């Protein structure tokens, strides 16, 4: 993050005047839909929020970081773009991820939950689940296993995470080098298929 450590008095006065003019404008984006941490921050009671914060505070640091990280937000935004999810569906996927992270939902029930909450077919739900497990949860697999063992001791014998080999993360596709006079729709991009 770029923070100017040497602000002049003029810059400070300018920033303050900008704020005074429009205190509620922050020129950011409405990212609450895509944040597992903030998705319900504005529409749940104070008591529920406190309860939620207590749960979060009990989590291990890596899980807590994933829950509140900007990269998680960007991951969910990309997921919403790739699967053409609406704002409500994006908020639902954020809630599902939140529930997994705080240990309220088993990873094995992720597909069913996604399918139900987002009203999507099983195949799409499975694809979304795979993307979440392989890209978002991969670095904290052990922490999640431990958390689920604590929360659902009766399911300890169940395989918590699938044993399928991890597919490498698909790199962002560079732009196709297509001549200007060629119709893009006539080109089939076979990369990463």
């Amino acid at each position, binding site marked *: *993050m*770029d*923070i*100017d*450590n040497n*602000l002049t*008095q003029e810059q*400070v*006065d300018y*920033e*303050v005047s*900008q*704020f005074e003019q429009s*205190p509620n*404008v*922050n*020129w*950011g*984006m409405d*990212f609450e839909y*895509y*944040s597992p*941490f*903030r998705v319900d*921050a*504005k529409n749940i009671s*104070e008591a529920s*929020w*406190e309860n939620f*914060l*207590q749960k*979060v*505070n009990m989590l291990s640091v890596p899980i*807590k*970081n994933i*829950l*509140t*990280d*900007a990269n998680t*937000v*960007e991951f969910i*935004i*990309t997921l*919403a*773009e790739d699967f*053409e999810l609406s704002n409500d569906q*994006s908020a639902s996927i954020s809630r599902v991820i939140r529930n997994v992270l705080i240990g309220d939902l088993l990873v094995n029930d992720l597909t069913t939950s996604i399918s139900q909450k987002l009203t999507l077919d099983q195949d799409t739900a499975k694809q979304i689940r795979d993307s979440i497990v392989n890209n978002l949860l991969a670095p904290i697999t052990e922490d999640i296993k431990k958390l689920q063992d604590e929360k659902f001791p009766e399911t300890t014998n169940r395989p918590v995470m699938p044993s399928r080999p991890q597919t490498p993360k698909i790199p962002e596709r560079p*732009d196709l080098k297509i001549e200007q006079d060629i119709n*893009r729709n006539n080109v089939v991009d076979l990369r990463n298929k």
Partner: protein
Amino acid sequence: MPINYKKHKKLFLAILFAIVLVFLPTHSAKACVLGWDPISTCILEGTSYFVYLIFTIVGKGIVALAGILQLVINIPVYPSGGIAVIDESWKIMRNFANMFFIVALILMAFATIFDVIPGAAKYNARALFGRFLFTALLINFSLVLGVMVIQGTQVLSNTFLFSIGDMSGRLGQGLNPSLLLPNVSATTASQAVDQGIFGALISLVFALVLAVTFLFSILTAVIFTFIRIPILWALLVVSPIAWILNVFPSGQGTFKKWWSTFIGWNMFLPIFLFFLYFGLYFLSQQDTVIKAIAGSSSTGSILGDVATSFTFQTLFMYIMAGIFLIGGTSVAMKASMFSGTGVVGIAKWSRGVAARRLGLTGLGQAAKEKQAEIMAGEGRLGRIFGGPPAGLETSRKLFGVRGGDIKAQKEFLDRSKNDFDRFENEYDTGKLSVAQLRAKVQSTKGDSAEGYAYRKLAIKKGALDERQFTDALVSVKNNPLAIQELVKTAKESKFDGIKDLKSVALDPRLDSPNFTPAKRELLLNIGSDNKLAAKLDTADVAKAVSILGGESTPEAKKFLLDVGGTRPDLIAQRKSITSGTNIKGEMYKLINTADSKKLADMPPQVWRDPTFQDALKIKIQFLNRTNKALPEGTLFPRGTTPPVGMPPGITLPNGDILIPGRPGAIPGGRKFKGRPGGGDKFKMQLDNATTGNGFKNGVVARL
């Protein structure tokens, strides 16, 4: 039947005494008769016989030792025919050492295979093979090489031995202690002693000391020349092991040490013989010297003209000869190798053991400690003989001694230091408990060395609360150095036990100038400690700034900066009042450089402050403007032109074109959900940092 020696101890002693009597030197019998001074005559007779007796014993000892030395220096270490025990033992050692070549080969093989392991490189074949071959060849010649060194040094020794000739004879001829006695006309030591006068006893003592010195010098030489033989034999026998160690990098040190020890013990004899030769040569030339002395001296009495007396000059010559002999042994030891190795160490150890056994070390140490105590003015004797002279402080003031105050303060601290060390020792060994320490603080006066030491220890161990700590400071109000030391001690123990440091720093009892440096120290500590700074209020900050010398002093600036890191609300308010600027601006400046963790750690009263919340919003706005969020819309990757008629798009830094508000509706474009800005990310970091605190996190959620 075994003899019980303990039981018959007295009997054995009697037999031993009888044997000694038989061997005592003969002396003409002389009964003490009543003359004009029978008692003094008897004393003189008895003394002279005693001195004569010692001279005779020492002289015989020198003769015997000189004979032994003559014998020992002529023993060849390794005669030409060889020594069976060495040859056979060396063969066993060589065969044993040969087994290690296999180990070395295996080690080299593994180190070469696993070359990637750190540290394996120095064991691989490339590094070890040359030395391996060299050693494999020379290990068979280790005995021959050793013997060559011995014979080489023997050649040197022989040169001196040949020059010295009959060493014992020359030494016996050279040393004639009777020359040292007062009456030079006497032919024997016995007569010389008989004719001596009581005043000449001083010269007798000198002569005696010199004779004993000769005895010990020769004894040392005999011991070292003798023990070098078995040592050299042992070194020869273990030489194959030393050679094989040379193959392994970690054993090369041992190999070098073997060589240095071996050469050292070999070189001892030639060097010693050189000095012995020199000493004997000096003694052999004594006739010339004595004649010269006799010609120049006017009297034979040491009590006469001391510098020119015959006895004194003769004594000087013997001392010189003694120095050569004793120094020769010492130099031979050092020059060969013994300095820093075991021999000198053993000598020191044996001397130390003797001193300790006799109680000399303990006695000396106790005496030193007592003297230090007395000089420090401790205890009954100290109060009488030690400590500062009475009325010193008053007199210093009277005469206007520069720095007199400081001297007195330092002396007080020095006196208390011994007490402190003693009390701390008692505390550490469990003789003084915390409760007892607190009681001592209560029962003693802080301005006495003892009371001060108890207070200092209590502060160090965290046994005082803020009120007691303040009392301790007040008790030494006339001694700024003591005040400073107490604060330093408290700081080193991280103000353990003192929960409210603010109450100490701002206590009105500490308003005298003597306390200012201490209060400054305390305030700077409060400023840099988040927990302590969190407890400050506006009035405290104002008072602190005044104690620190006003807003413009470096200390006050540092204090305000430190407190601003924890309590920006107080500092922003103060700054906006003093400089007339916008309080939100001041707050924004204070929190601008703080990261999310530091902000989250700020106390709740800061987070409750609306100015702080506004400053956070200003920061979020600023970050979102400088690192903009991307709105939802359609993204045209670089090189793809949006269709004609589209609203103007935003060209992103990577060349993509974004048309906001049209998610995926435009053909050729990619649906784009937007990306958070810098302020949004800062908000997420704050979320993370405040998850443990519902109130603070609620504030962040509403930002």
